């Protein structure tokens, strides 16, 4: 047991750190030049793969232009090196800058495209590399290649081969550290949410555009670094090194090592570089192997070796080293919140000439549960989407408190409107606690740099994230499951998780979109209790539901929507017997509503 408790305290980053130090120290442990060259090539590929992993594995965008950005960084370095600027730090800075520019410039149109179009555009860049190099043949040597790159120097002194090796490996290790800090921070969770469902991302306050652009830009940097290293390695550059075979091998290494993994980039790079492909008799099979890897890997999707190992390791950990359970939360589970009134005034919305909403007005007061019911096609979903900013308003206004809302979902989320979705879409690899913490993204802002550098401001934000997550998980009764994988939980639990995620941000307005659908009676009861608690503590709750019993039991005010208009409003006792509501739901024509008390044959006789 002693061994286990000690083992529990070992941080997960210790092993990779030790490995990195050993690798950097290779020359002083007797490694000769051929081994050093292999390691540098691995570093180069690992950097390229890490960039792809960020945009593909985390942000979910298939941006395949790494090979082109790599060429850019390499030729920038080569140009500098052949014109007397041999300081390697200068070269690195220029390579990174060039990579960032290209990354941003190609990223901006790419964001509007997405999917296949983005993949094709970025892949096309690889096709353009030889042409662009030829156009600038004076600077790049064109098809003949760039020769005469002088040896790199640092602080005025020429770097020895050992020195260069240490520089290359250290820079690689530092970059991987930066990435690791980034993806283990809440930004990593944000990327994952973005990948899973951009609509969900904007509902927790993530600006989809800015996030995707960040992923591209950050993913371009390691390609630039790799280019700088590569140019100085052989001191010669040829366009042939930057073709499709390279682009495919980067993707293959990513898939092999696990696209959503930082260490996976290293694993993939190691296997592809050191594998049997290096022996010349196998060289001709390299494309076949890459193709098979992609085919099989693609079939297994983004779960590569590292991913499978991660899961196995996680299972082992949970059996032998169960993570320490947080102590039960002592404190106010639902501190008093200042909810704000949500008011919708004379809202109008039409789609292509068809009126979805005509002159809809309603008010949701703080401390109350306001329910919105109505048949399908009545406009409930449209109304909800308008409140959240997914559509433009055609007429009327929506106000949260005194402020009118704008047509930007993430801004509305950041102003304190939280929303659940009918189909909870939760990223696959995160735990319950991480999923809930994602809700803080909207209102508790923290930048990339503090996260990467683990500055005190970041640590404080993180500590309060964790604390708040404990509170809300205790509130919804999921405290025991905080370390479980969120996506594997049953539906009822995931619904509660959604509510917890919304509540953690102490929203001014909480919108619940059919939270009871698919739940059994016990789960509905639990949900009802939770809704009442939230409104009792001062929050504004808007509930869209079909489950009439639930609505009758928790709502303070009910609005009935039908064919784009509010046909009735009032407390449950009034709505329950309201003739127009009966008409709408029973489909009986209005004048005959009174006839409901008569029998069908009596009605017929009077026609």
């Amino acid at each position: 047991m002693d061994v286990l408790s000690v083992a529990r305290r070992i941080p997960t980053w210790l092993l990779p750190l030790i490995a990195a130090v050993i690798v950097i120290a290779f020359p002083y442990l007797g490694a000769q030049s051929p081994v050093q060259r292999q390691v540098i090539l691995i570093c180069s590929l690992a950097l390229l793969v890490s960039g792809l992993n960020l945009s593909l594995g985390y942000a979910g965008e298939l941006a395949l232009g790494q090979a082109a950005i790599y060429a850019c960084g390499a030729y920038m370095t080569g140009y500098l090196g052949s014109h007397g600027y041999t300081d390697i730090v200068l070269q690195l800075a220029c390579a990174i800058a060039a990579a960032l520019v290209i990354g941003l410039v190609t990223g901006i149109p790419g964001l509007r495209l997405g999917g296949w179009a983005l993949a094709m555009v970025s892949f096309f860049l690889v096709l353009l590399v030889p042409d662009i190099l030829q156009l600038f043949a004076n600077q790049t040597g064109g098809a003949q290649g760039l020769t005469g790159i002088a040896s790199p120097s640092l602080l005025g002194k020429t770097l020895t081969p050992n020195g260069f090796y240490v520089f290359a490996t250290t820079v690689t290790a530092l970059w991987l550290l930066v990435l690791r800090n980034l993806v283990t921070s809440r930004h990593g969770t944000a990327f994952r949410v973005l990948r899973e469902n951009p609509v969900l991302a904007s509902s927790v306050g993530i600006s989809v555009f800015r996030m995707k652009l960040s992923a591209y830009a950050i993913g371009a940097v390691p390609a630039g670094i790799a280019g700088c290293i590569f140019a100085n390695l052989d001191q010669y550059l040829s366009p042939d090194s930057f073709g499709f075979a390279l682009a495919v091998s980067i993707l293959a290494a990513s898939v092999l090592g696990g696209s959503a993994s930082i260490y996976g980039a290293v694993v993939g790079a190691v296997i592809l570089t050191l594998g049997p492909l290096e022996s010349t008799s196998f060289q001709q099979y390299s494309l076949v192997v890459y193709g098979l890897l992609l085919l099989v890997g693609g079939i297994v999707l983004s779960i590569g070796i590292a991913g499978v190992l991660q899961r196995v390791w996680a299972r082992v950990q949970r059996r032998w080293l169960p993570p320490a359970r947080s102590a039960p939360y002592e404190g106010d589970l639902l501190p008093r919140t200042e909810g704000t009134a949500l008011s919708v005034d004379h809202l109008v919305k039409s789609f292509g000439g068809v009126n979805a909403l005509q002159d809809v007005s309603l008010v949701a007061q703080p401390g109350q549960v306001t329910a919105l019911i109505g048949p399908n096609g009545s406009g409930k979903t449209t109304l909800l989407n308008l409140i959240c900013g997914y559509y433009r308003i055609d007429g009327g206004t929506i106000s949260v408190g005194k402020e009118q809302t704008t047509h930007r979902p993430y801004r509305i989320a950041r102003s304190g409107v939280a929303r659940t979705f009918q189909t909870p879409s939760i990223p696959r690899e995160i735990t319950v606690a991480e999923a809930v913490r994602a809700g803080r993204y909207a209102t508790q802002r923290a930048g990339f740099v503090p996260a990467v550098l683990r500055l005190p401001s970041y640590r404080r934000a993180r500590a309060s994230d964790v604390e708040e997550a404990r509170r809300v998980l205790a509130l919804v009764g999921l405290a025991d499951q905080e370390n479980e994988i969120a996506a594997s939980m049953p539906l009822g639990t995931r619904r509660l998780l959604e509510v917890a995620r919304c509540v953690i941000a102490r929203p001014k307005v909480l919108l619940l979109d059919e939270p009871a659908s698919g739940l059994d009676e016990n789960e509905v009861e639990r949900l009802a209790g939770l809704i009442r608690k939230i409104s009792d503590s001062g929050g504004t709750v808007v509930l869209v539901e079909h489950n009439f019993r639930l609505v009758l039991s928790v709502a303070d005010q009910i609005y009935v929507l039908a064919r784009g208009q509010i046909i009735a409003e009032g407390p449950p006792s009034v709505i329950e017997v309201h003739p127009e509501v009966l008409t709408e739901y029973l489909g009986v024509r209005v004048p005959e509503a009174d006839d409901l008390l008569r029998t069908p044959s009596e009605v017929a006789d009077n026609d």
Partner: protein
Amino acid sequence: MDAVWSGLALGAVYALVALGYHIVFVSSNAFNFAHAQLIMLGTFIVYWGSVTLKLPIGLVFLLAAAIVGGVAVLEERTAIRIVRGTEGQLVTTLGFATLLNGATQVIWGGSPLQVPFFGSSNVLVVLGGHVFPDDLILMGVAVVLTIGFVLVSRMTVLGIALLAVSEDREAALMRGINVRALGIGAFAVSGIVAGLLGPLIGPKTFAVATLGSDLALKGFVAMAIGGFGSAPGALIGGFAVGLIESEAGRYLGASYSNLMIFAVLLGVLLLRPTGLFGHARERMV
């Protein structure tokens, strides 16, 4: 006029690649990046049949159609059927293309192979420009295939079923249409057509394994210009790309051809994403 003919000839090849994309896109809602590589495989089979085995041209056609069709079915089973979703399919079809690329290089080596043309190789002068008979046939085939596809899809029940599947897969299932079988069938047809094009495209481009990715990308641009989901669009888009390539090469220089195509691609995707004849998709949240 020479440049126009050469542009149209190139364009015919791109159009044929785009048509292959179109058939699969319409029936399975998938984008088969490996289609161009299937065409390349066809050219190698033709080389093998004509030069190595010295078979009569009729048998070569059959051989190419059969082998490439079979490989296409294999691709459908592995790369498309099991994998759902754009991202996964991109990786698997790209993988299959790379696999074919590597396999053909292993079997036939990496150098371009000359594929003999079964017809005349004498250059003709038409409308003031030089053009090979092979090129004229290719252009004609592209036009005929497009017209044929449009006719079949409008007039035969099977063709209408295909269009129905691409419009609303579920509703098509509810009419008793075996959507899965249709998808496989269309994929196989795209492979057979790719094989049959081998004797025509091979003499023009040579049997070059690495040309597949170049054709694949330009075929995509053809679809982007013409509009996804439109066969006439694929045809016109293909010719457009070919003309842009040859005219840019003529007036600006060889290195500018691909750059111009790229610029047009970006322009179309940003300004008119549905292309010339494509269908606008509704925004859904």
